[in-house]
């Protein structure tokens, strides 16, 4: 029987995710106006970054893998950016 326990970074990551979750719920109930949406998305992005860097081990992977991981999100930004240009600028 090999004695084993998860690394500190994993445990810390999990704790951080839980804290961020609590934070995002709390902030959602604060009347910040349009900022509510921005805050919610910012925290979601932070959580995603944690999951990708630590759980998905991107922190220790070569640049090529990181580029592949980023590509989908980059193209999603293109879709949202150019797609919304029309809807935002309609008179």
């Amino acid at each position: 029987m090999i004695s084993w326990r998860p690394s500190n970074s994993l445990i810390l990551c999990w704790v951080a995710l839980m804290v961020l979750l609590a934070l995002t719920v709390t902030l959602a109930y604060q009347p910040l106006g349009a900022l509510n949406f921005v805050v919610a998305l910012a925290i979601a992005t932070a959580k995603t970054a944690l999951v990708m860097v630590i759980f998905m081990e991107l922190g220790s992977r070569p640049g090529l893998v990181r580029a592949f991981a980023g590509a989908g999100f980059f193209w999603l930004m293109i879709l949202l950016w150019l797609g919304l240009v029309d809807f935002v600028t309609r008179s």
Partner: protein
Amino acid sequence: MKNYLTEDYTLRSWFFTTDHKRIAILYFASLIFLFFIGGAAATLIRIELATPQADLVSSDTYNRLFTMHGIIMVWFFLIPSVPNTLGNFIVPLMIGARDLAFPRLNLASWYLFMLGAAITLLAIFMGGVDTGWTLYTPFSTLYSNSYVAVAAAGIFIAGFSSILTGLNFIVTIHKLRAPGLTWYRLPLFIWSLYATSIILVLATPVLAITLVLLAAERIFGIGVFDPRIGGDPLLFQHLFWFYSHPAVYIMILPGMGVVNELITCYSRKKIFGYKFVAWASLAIAAAGFLVWGHHMFVSGQSLTASLVFSFMSFVVAVPSAIKVFNWTATLHKGTLRFDAPMLYALGFIGLFTMGGLTGLFLACLAFDVYATDTYFVVAHFHYIMVGGMVTAYFGGLHYWWPKITGRMYSEYWARAAAILIFLGFNLTFFPQFILGAEGMPRRYHVYPPEFQVWNVLSSGGATILAAAYLLPLFYLGYSIFFGAKAPANPWGATGLEWQTPSPPPKFNFDRQPVVDSPPYDYEHAPEPQNV
């Protein structure tokens, strides 16, 4: 000695093969069949349009014909054409690999493709689809009395076949290259298929989800795009064209890739500006995602969006122009031979350039207001897709035919077919530019009589084109059984695929090849052989 064809003769060995070369053959057989179904629809359309009145078919049938022509040709012929047949066969050979990175995924992609095709054909035989291949809402969701959801399911499934192919190519090109084969030593065909794969992987899922939304709205009536209950029909167009415009580049980039190989081989010279051509492919793939709104200049999208998309459309034309200039410059001081593949390649350059230049007309906002949804658009994209892609496909098919089948075809008939296709094509589609410039709208079953002259010319050209497309079926078919045996490298071409016997053995190379020279090194290539 056994090769991939003679390895095993059972049906099982074909339908459960994971050999990329056999899967390419499976794709090839399926695509010929689908090409002729789509072509049959086109033939009926051209016959009907020879007169202004309705005389051959009813309007409902006519609408189903052009829809079927579009759906089959776009999703079940052009998109898989070069990537899944020539690409599947040649990519591992070209990079010195034993197979694609995921051989079983490759086979799965063929089965998905066949399932998608079967469902789409089912929709057609159940009674057809009458929405046009663009499936615009709210017509497709609320008003069409045809089998839209079934066809959407077929396209959806075929889309996943595309995604798997793209994924396979990307990983293969990154990880399975032979020792010494650096990125800048890759043949440009590989670069262009890599760019194509990026689009396949990143654009197709958006089509998939759009079709899900379309089917959900049609089946449950939930109103995602229904303007009566708050939906926006233009949102559908945005999502659809986010896929379908890059899909145009899926349909042309592989063709450009083929032409690089042909031009260099028959000029006996390395390509002019290798790095520019290579990066132009990636530039087209990336910038191709930024221009989709040019399909919507008159749709009611905001003027600001139209300006942005028009500007980006001009930008994406630059890398295409770079390619044309470089191909032409490659001919300079070459030693040109005019074998059939070269004739196709030269035809491609001319026709693609005409398609590209008329694309500038359509990117130009004020003229697009006039020309969009007219025959000008029809002519433009046929110059790109048929004049460009299909011509390149035929060129590549002839070029690699000895490698694939191990047989030589009749050079005489091949040249005749190439010239006939070029003439028939121009006669069919050039008059359509004029029809468009005169203002004849597309998807018209009957039309005002003043448009007849050009329509008759176009239909006449279509007859020649149809006959010319049938020709290769005969002489290529003949060569499989009676053609002379092909040597390993009949054209004296560079590239690893020519360093293994024709047809290649099961795992492509008897020995792992190692590369230590730049691409298209024709100064040190063997002389072409006369077989």
